């Protein structure tokens, strides 16, 4: 038998993300990863705030200024949402791991529910906080 001629080029790879129509569950999986990464950075900020708290009133006041500024506040709000989104995403995965809500349309409802819950809870938290000025009676 004649020896097969070696291929000049490796076989091309068919496109994946470039052609795959985004699905909600896939997008939420990406968001779960993204919020997880964001939380790493967020908790460094939280550690900095705790360190400032321990370092004394002056350091705490400076840190407070950073977090209540127009730069700090949106980051803080985004951090709150990221925690809630990641937590609700975890609950969704727990439900799926119990083999519940895999069937259409329940898997879509569940995915939408966790997204909406994270947005609603983060909004409620911040509306309450800003409404009461951080001093609930």
């Amino acid at each position: 038998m004649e020896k097969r001629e070696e291929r000049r080029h490796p076989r091309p790879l068919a496109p994946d993300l470039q052609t795959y129509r985004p699905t909600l569950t896939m997008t939420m999986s990406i968001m779960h990863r993204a919020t997880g990464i964001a939380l790493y950075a967020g908790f460094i900020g939280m550690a900095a705030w705790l360190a400032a708290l321990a370092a004394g009133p002056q350091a705490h006041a400076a840190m407070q200024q950073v977090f209540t500024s127009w730069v700090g506040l949106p980051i803080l709000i985004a951090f709150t949402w990221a925690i809630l989104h990641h937590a609700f995403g975890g609950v969704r995965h727990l439900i799926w791991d119990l083999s519940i809500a895999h069937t259409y349309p329940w898997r879509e409802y569940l995915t939408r529910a966790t997204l909406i819950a994270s947005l609603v809870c983060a909004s409620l938290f911040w509306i309450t906080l800003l409404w009461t000025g951080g001093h609930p009676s």
Partner: protein
Amino acid sequence: MKSFLPLNWGVEAGSRIARGRIWPAANTKGAIRTLEIYRYDPDAHSGPRLDVYHIDQNDCGPMVLDALIKIKNEIDPTLTFRRSCREGVCGSCSMNIGGRNWLACTQAMDDIDGPIRVFPLSHMRVVKDLVIDQSRLFDQHRLIQPWLRTEGPEPERERLQSPEERAELDGFYECILCFSCTGGCPSYWWNGDRYLGPAVLLNAYRWLVDSRDEATGERLDDLEDPFRLYRCHTIMNCTKTCPKGLEPAKAIAKIKAMLVARQQ
């Protein structure tokens, strides 16, 4: 929404898709349907390209496979694709159609708006046009030993199952190995060399729950691996893209549950 990314975003040089030939509509009287089809010829010295075909929809069957066969017969005989049963039981014609993996023979053209874009199964090595290299997929299928494993002498009659035991297999034995799910799984795209993928894991579960099988423990041992099973992140693309309506993600969840249960 078509896709997150442009067609050639981050694609290795040899896989970039060039603009191809535009085949004019010939002998058409009725409504014209446009198909954009991925082409790759291993004997040519160029990479993949996207050819545009126009067909007379009034003179064609309703499914995407009908259009592919019509193109091959009447316009361009070099168009290459796998097909056999043309009724969704053989699993040969799975490909990426309109942004999701499905069987060309059960995908109605009317359910897709605008030009119908046809690519090979996502993230698979392409042999020619829409034909992918399936060798790794079947190697992985062989790895889970998809047959009845028993010990001791052969029984004198068939191994019996109660209707309840048989019902355990429903939703898991119907897989036709078209690999639409595996081709639609982002975890498989990034870790396909070590992760088994949804189709193979669904089949693994089918043998795990078979009451006649006696190798459940060994099967679980083989799957308890950070990559083979646990690369599944429940992205759910597999379940959404199964043309047989099966739920590979559920099978994987059940395997994970079996692994947890046996620790207690």
